[in-house]
């Protein structure tokens, strides 16, 4: 707030404004420069995390591929198993350059689609946050009262997002160059990532005008990303025409490391320009704080379920539970379908085979399934933690006082969201397990896999609950510091996914709860660690309750 106030004050200075003789358009974006700086400063931590996340993904993939595929034979074997495998094409893209595979081409097949999706999400989140969500905050009034042009906030969000995209894309390209890949290919990859970021910034700009509120705008922007992914997936397995209707398809059609087609870059630039003009036109036509589509009215009276803290917690979190279940469930189903190919993918790659063999005594297919269960559990832990930390968000937003001023005990309020976190975690893992099993049952014609995988997934829950407990205990002591739990989560991710690459000592790895759960189906069931993890989780939750009863509410 202090920095905002300073900025607003600075905008009020005469030289920051725009004199009357400038043309209309210039006037409508007056103050953009200051707003850009304000946006970037406000988001500096957030952007640092995005940068670390996306570039980190590139670093990790580049490191592991450089280690796994060293010889032309290994590259060729990779290409043999991947090419023509529809399941993998749907997931990752057409695999340009795999007919004559280079490390760069393999890297693109493994990496490009995820990087593009990540930067698209970055663009959408950042744009909505600084346009529509900003309008709904109290600060908007302050900014509007300052002499900034009508389109300045939108222009500033666009410029700031473009800068963020550019920095991330440059980081990705630099990483590949650092790992010894050709500069041309690396820059082509960076450009494709940047282009996708720009297009989705434009998409978000339009969504911010059209939607009825910031959450709806976020949903709309994310839905367009999803649609772009699906459209290119259908195009890539078909004759490729549809892929030209998807910004993600364009990004891959630049063909980094496979005879680059630079002219394709015109498409994202043209699309961005078009989308921005649409957004500007729409902005001129709507009221501040309102969308083009009206807000759907809610119920005039509360339904019967909305009468307890638990009922409220369910209501507040149900959309998130459904979203996570659908998203992770689809991924799980996908893993199930490709599971029987694991054996052939790994056949010619002894190191990868060793890696999977370490996971358990079972077959490579079982090892792959165990790995899939672990990956889903790690991702779903993101839900578990954010669901517990909803308590923090509610308290920070000042919505807890009104509840605690009624005869509701603090522990009851705390337990309500904790219950949703636990229930949601069990539901997500059960459904992911069932879908993983269903996918695998389809390709292996063995219906018994469905229950087997569901059990394997549910066995992960105690480790996930340790994170719920940790988040809750931290919240109990201090809502401000409770996000520290994310550091523990990142640690578990590193330990779970990169243990063999990083060569860390066992004692350090053992800090992650996931090191202790039996990796079904490759391992056999072991009860002691499961019970121990549950006990740790329960103890942490009890500690959180104890602390919550004793502190000031903020």
């Amino acid at each position: 707030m202090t920095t905002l106030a300073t900025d607003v004050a600075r905008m009020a200075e005469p030289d920051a404004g725009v004199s009357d003789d400038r043309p209309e358009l210039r006037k409508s974006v007056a103050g953009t420069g200051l707003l850009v700086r304000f946006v970037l400063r406000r988001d500096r931590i957030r952007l640092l995390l995005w940068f670390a996340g996306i570039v980190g993904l590139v670093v990790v993939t580049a490191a592991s591929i450089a280690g796994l595929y060293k010889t032309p034979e290994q590259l060729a074997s990779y290409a043999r198993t991947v090419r023509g495998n529809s399941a993998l094409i749907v997931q990752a893209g057409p695999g340009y350059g795999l007919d004559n595979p280079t490390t760069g081409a393999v890297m693109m097949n493994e990496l490009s689609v995820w990087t593009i999706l990540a930067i698209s999400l970055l663009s959408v989140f950042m744009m909505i946050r600084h346009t529509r969500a900003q309008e709904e905050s109290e600060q908007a009034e302050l900014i509007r009262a300052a002499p900034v042009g009508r389109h300045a906030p939108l222009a500033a969000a666009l410029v700031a997002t473009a800068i963020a995209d550019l920095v991330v894309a440059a980081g990705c390209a630099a990483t590949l160059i650092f790992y010894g890949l050709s500069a041309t290919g690396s820059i082509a990859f960076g450009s494709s990532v940047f282009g996708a970021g720009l297009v989705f910034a434009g998409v978000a700009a339009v969504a911010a005008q059209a939607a009825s509120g910031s959450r709806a705008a976020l949903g709309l922007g994310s839905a367009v990303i999803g649609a772009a992914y699906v459209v290119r997936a259908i195009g890539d397995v078909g004759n490729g025409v549809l892929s030209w209707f998807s910004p993600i398809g364009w990004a891959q059609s630049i063909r980094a490391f496979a005879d680059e087609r630079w002219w394709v870059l015109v498409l994202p630039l043209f699309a961005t320009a078009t989308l921005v003009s649409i957004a500007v036109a729409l902005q001129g036509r709507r009221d501040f704080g309102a969308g083009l589509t009206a807000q759907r009215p809610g119920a005039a009276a509360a339904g019967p379920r909305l009468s307890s803290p638990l009922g409220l917690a369910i209501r507040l979190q149900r959309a998130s539970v459904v979203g996570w279940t659908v998203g992770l469930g689809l991924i799980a189903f996908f893993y199930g379908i490709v599971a029987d190919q694991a054996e052939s993918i790994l056949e010619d790659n002894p190191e990868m085979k060793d890696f999977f063999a370490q996971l358990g005594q079972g077959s490579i297919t079982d090892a792959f399934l165990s790995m899939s269960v672990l990956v889903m559990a790690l991702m779903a832990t993101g839900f578990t933690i954010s669901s517990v930390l909803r308590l923090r968000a509610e308290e920070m937003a000042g919505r807890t006082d009104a509840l605690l001023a009624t005869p509701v005990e603090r522990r009851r309020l705390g337990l309500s969201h904790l219950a949703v976190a636990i229930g949601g975690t069990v539901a997500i893992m059960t459904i992911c397990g069932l879908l993983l099993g269903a996918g695998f049952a389809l390709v292996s014609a063995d219906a018994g896999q469905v229950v087997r995988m569901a059990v394997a997934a549910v066995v992960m829950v105690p480790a996930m609950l340790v994170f719920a407990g940790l988040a809750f205990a931290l919240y109990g002591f201090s809502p401000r510091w409770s996000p520290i739990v994310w550091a523990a989560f990142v640690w578990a991710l590193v330990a779970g996914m990169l243990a063999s690459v990083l060569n860390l000592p066992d004692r350090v790895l053992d800090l992650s709860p996931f090191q202790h759960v039996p990796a079904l189906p490759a391992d056999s069931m072991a009860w002691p660690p499961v019970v121990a993890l549950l006990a740790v989780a329960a103890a942490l939750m009890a500690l959180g309750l104890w602390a919550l009863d004793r502190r000031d509410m903020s």
Partner: protein
Amino acid sequence: MLADWEGTTKGSVMSTTVNVAPAISISGLVKTFGSTRALDGLDLEVAVGEVHGFLGPNGAGKTVTIRVLLGLLRTDGGTARLLGGDPWVDAVELHRRIAYVPGDVNLWPNLSGGETIDLLARLRGGVDQRKRDDLVERLALDPRKKCRAYSKGNRQKVALIAGLASDAELLLLDEPTSGLDPLMESVFQDCILEATREGRTVLLSSHILAEVEKLCDRVTIIRQGRAVQSGTLDDLRSLTRTNITAATDRPIVGLDGLDGVHNVRFDEGHVHFDVDGAALDGAIRHLSSFGIHSLVSQPPTLEELFLRHYGDELAAMNGAERGVT
């Protein structure tokens, strides 16, 4: 420091409530946040059945006091009693008997106003449907709108309806009208008067003086976490100077010499002066010995009362003492 006239404030309100424990009784309350002393020995007493104004500039500690009473904050010293119980230990039982309307109303963006009102009422033990619908209509709230779409004033209405529709004995209202338009403010005032007729007690934190003057039996003025004055409005006025303009048959002499008389000025046969509440009687007797034929007296407004207590702050802010009294 409480002014020394505090012992003389047992007005009509107190005489009817002998033997009844006060609804709120705070003494020597201290609350610190790090190095900030938000409450610094606060005293506050609210009798059952009264509307008590709780006045103070921004940052004086009004909200912190109310949050202590709600058991949301621990105290660092002093005592606080609420309806005969301990606000921290007995929070849940006490909350069945109170309703709270915050100043900064934050609501769940994707719940409608109607849903929010019902939720809060149910958590308190049930909805008085007739009262709820009546309030929704009188305050002209559209209960179907999502809270995200409400303006500040409308969010405040939601919180007010949830609080007023309850059967709470004690209403804790923290600047409840700061976003309401004048029309809605008068509806709010009617609602508070109805609540007192039903025998409820109200603690009304505010810095809208006209509202406090209209509604409150007694007021406490706080500043920097300490009560600087407390009493009925009349008591407070008696502490402040009344402005008198008079005309007499014979020329006045000796008025300047009286204790408690200030700023004596003569013009066109009139005399103007300010007189302390305690010296009013003497001053008027003195005047009448010269044969009064016209007299206008203006009681001090709450504004003046308020300014008297914050005047030095204002002066410091303006960098110079202003020419008043």
